[in-house]
């Protein structure tokens, strides 16, 4: 399995996938505080033209909270880009037949699946941590992170949502033949859960709620309110992995 992990690492680097993703998440990390920092200046620059339309601007107060609000707005987009870029991670190998020499050398299918899963979970974790770390650093430098409550709980919950999405991606990668099917499945399932969350009763335990970190930062919710959501996400990740192993073992390559 180590050999296959090494191969994944080489693939990500040499195809430029890792660099693109790193760039995106670093950019998002910088953009959150930068946008917050620029807001007053932007408002000032626009105040004259806004005054013409009858809108009166007053001095805007920005702090770490403005930047964190940006962070929770941007991270779903980061996750979507991540899913788009890695959606072909399995299927490209099925389509080209590159797994056949590997499997026929006696490497077990489970090792292949495990290596790929570890790599996907790992890269989401690293990229997310980089984005969070950069925003955290700038916020601490410009303002004070102390204003945001439950900062790390909120961050961890959003990370769990990402893990849940990656688990869906792995499951759909194990059952489908092309990357468009993977995207359709993962996107459809995520969207479905998101839509179901409109109903408060369902929202109480669906993973989509984990994305709303701002509620925690503003202390509108406490970390304990999310136990059911975490449990459901965890169970679904487990279920996805069990099903993936079963399907991948029987998959026709």
């Amino acid at each position: 399995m180590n050999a296959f992990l090494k191969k994944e690492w080489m693939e990500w680097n040499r195809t430029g996938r890792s660099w693109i993703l790193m760039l995106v998440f670093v950019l998002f990390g910088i953009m959150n505080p930068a946008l917050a920092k620029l807001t007053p200046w932007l408002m000032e620059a626009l105040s004259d033209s806004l005054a013409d339309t009858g809108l009166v601007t007053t001095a805007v107060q920005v702090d770490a909270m403005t930047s964190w609000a940006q962070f929770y707005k941007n991270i779903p987009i980061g996750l979507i880009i991540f899913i788009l870029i890695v959606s072909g991670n399995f299927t490209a190998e099925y389509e080209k037949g590159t797994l056949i020499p590997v499997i026929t050398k006696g490497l077990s299918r489970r090792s292949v699946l495990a290596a790929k899963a570890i790599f996907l979970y790992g890269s989401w974790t690293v990229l997310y941590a980089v984005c969070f770390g950069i925003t955290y650093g700038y916020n601490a430098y410009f303002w004070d992170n102390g204003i945001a409550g439950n900062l790390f709980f909120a961050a961890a919950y959003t990370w769990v949502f990402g893990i849940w999405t990656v688990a869906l991606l792995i499951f759909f990668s194990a059952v489908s033949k092309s990357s468009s099917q993977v995207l359709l499945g993962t996107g459809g399932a995520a969207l479905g859960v998101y839509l179901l969350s409109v109903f408060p009763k369902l929202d109480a335990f669906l993973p989509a709620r984990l994305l709303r970190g701002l509620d925690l930062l503003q202390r509108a919710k406490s970390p304990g309110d999310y136990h059911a959501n975490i449990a459901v996400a965890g169970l679904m990740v487990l279920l996805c992995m069990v099903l993936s192993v079963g399907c991948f073992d029987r998959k026709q390559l």
Partner: protein
Amino acid sequence: MKMLSLSHVAKNFGGKQVLRDVSFSVPEHTVFGFVGQNGAGKTTAMKMILGLLTVNSGEITVDGMPVRYGNTPTNRFIGYLPDVPEFYPYMTPSEYLRFCGEISGMPAKETKSRCEELLRLVGLEKEKHRIKGFSRGMKQRLGVAQALFGRPKLLICDEPTSALDPAGRKELLDILTAAKEETTVLFSTHILSDVEHICDEMAFLHEGKIALKGSLDEVRKLKKASAVTVEMEYPEDTKALRQAFPFLKAAGKNSLLLEEAERLPELLHWIADRRYPVMRIERQEADLEDLFMEVVGK
């Protein structure tokens, strides 16, 4: 000792019956030719031996162990060269072979020496570029190297010569012959001359069944004399020849086909008597199709 045996293997894709009843076995240290027309089911049979396809009925064993679909422990004894081998395009050949060594759990030192040895064998030792830019022939060579890498007991090659130029083809056949010392080779082809060059035994696959199997000598006995093409220099000579021997068939401009090769001396005698200039007299290689049609009685 049988390295590989198939007994009453059948396979259908949906309603299409590809293999009906395939039984044959390959003894150790032989080169076994698996012959059949395009679409006869050779690749399907090979993929079932590798556990890449399910078997509808019958049994396959490799080195005495039954083959299982999906996770296939018997693959540890097998080296496989697919018909169109595909490798990770961002690796160089030596990186790919090192990767092969690592996934099969070979010690690093042995991997390194095996890697150099095989790259030399297939003539890719100076190739430092990534696989991305390789021609099909070069991929085929790398495919041979990776198939032989783990010193497999059974080497399975799916139409290994079809993408190669004549020189490459000869080299590949030499490699397979040399491999016989260490391993057992099963290779599929539709080129009869390849079989004649290197095989000890062969099996013909036709309409989902083994139409003929046996050692090369046994099969050769079934082959009738081949046809001969005679090409004359002038059209009028061709015409005269055809009038004298009405059983000759026209086969292009100034060319005549003699199907009953045993009458060739008679024909030559006639031409020599009249001193007609001849462009070419060629014995036609009995291609697979001919032999095949004879075997299956069509």
